[in-house]
């Protein structure tokens, strides 16, 4: 257990030293979001209607950015072997990596989502629902992404393969997240949509690390 937190601490320290990676994901998130008003026009009513969807899609794409280096560096420099031989189960290593990914990518995206949403004219009363959906949403994306990153590890052109693998699996998260925001906009109950998001998270929480762990073992062979 101590080793598990040590792994997370080490990942956080590494990402602090390589701060540009986290910053790049955040800037990408903002820029991708800002492209929409430029492309479809700044009409407040139109923007406000599709803004939650824009925030969700931008967050989804931004969360993918750091994934191909999530295990890539450790795989190339031999650190992955050391981790697999640390006595931690491979699934625990994957869970630690997913936690670190969320702390360095998902959480900053969550913080940046509010200003982006306001910029896109999301009404203030919808904001809590949007962020309340992004919390389990980004967690689920980190888990999914970790599993995807582990599976493409060692494959040629893994960086191209990764979005093709992760994006289709992220569709349920996207649907439940945006329908929650849409329900809030039309004053319908939002609870069922958020509960579904948490259900997705509850399924991924055991399954994604197990799959990622098995993939890590296979990659090390």
């Amino acid at each position: 257990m101590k080793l598990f937190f040590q792994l997370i601490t080490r990942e956080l320290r590494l990402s602090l030293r390589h701060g540009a990676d986290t910053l790049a994901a955040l800037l990408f998130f903002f820029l991708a979001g800002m492209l929409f008003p430029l492309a479809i026009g700044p009409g407040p009513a139109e923007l406000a209607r599709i803004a939650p969807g824009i925030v969700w899609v931008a967050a989804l794409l931004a969360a993918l950015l750091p994934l191909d280096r999530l295990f890539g560096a450790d795989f190339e420099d031999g650190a992955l072997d050391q981790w697999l031989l640390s006595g931690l189960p491979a699934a625990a290593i994957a869970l630690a990596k997913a936690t670190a990914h969320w702390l360095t990518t998902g959480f900053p995206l969550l913080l940046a989502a509010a200003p982006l949403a306001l910029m896109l004219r999301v009404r203030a009363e919808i904001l809590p629902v949007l962020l309340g959906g992004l919390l389990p949403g980004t967690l689920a994306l980190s888990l999914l992404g970790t599993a995807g990153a582990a599976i493409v590890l060692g494959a040629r052109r893994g960086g191209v393969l990764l979005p093709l693998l992760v994006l289709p699996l992220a569709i349920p998260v996207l649907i439940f997240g945006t329908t929650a925001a849409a329900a809030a906009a039309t004053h319908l109950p939002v609870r069922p949509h958020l509960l579904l998001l948490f259900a997705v998270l509850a399924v991924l929480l055991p399954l994604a690390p197990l799959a990622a762990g098995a993939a890590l073992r296979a990659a090390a062979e």
Partner: protein
Amino acid sequence: MGDTEMAGHEAGQKDRMRLEARSLAAFRGERLVLEGVSFRLEAGGALLLRGANGAGKSTLLRALAGLIPLAAGTLLWEGEDALADLSQHARRLGYLGHQDAVKPALSVAENLGLAARGGDVGVALAALNLAPLADLPARFLSAGQRRRLAIARLLLARAPLWLLDEPGNGLDDASLIALGAISDRHRAAGGMVIAATHHDLPFPSASQLFLS
């Protein structure tokens, strides 16, 4: 480096600690590179793996570590299947791969911080003459210094079985002598060393295993 603790901890197991490989076979990709590999290693023993490039030395070390599944054969630790519980097996191992697993962004001491299972980072660095570099970011290390840092990690693992893949790569003469000294201390405390190498290593009375 906690030698006294380590010796005390292992004194009781010293007599029965033994690794035995019975006709191991392993694949590397699609190719069967190892077949019928058998050896025994007593507490305090050392085994040098010899053979041409591609003979399967690294594959054997990875198989012994449990990183590659065995295609056939059994690996016994004190008479029991060593690979039945991989996490438990991993705790018996100090593994030095042919890559150093050194993170350029972390300092020398930070690179070791995580491997420390109760070992003292300062003492491990001193044993490899790295103590003056402790606070230096690892990206400034030379290849030989990175190798020494990876070897220092072994001292912290406090594991009875060391698996070393070309441990002498890039080391100068003084560092080779230091490697011999820490290996001698490890074996005197009942530890075992298996090393794949092309060069002569200062491991006295080591047996050799030729792979073809």
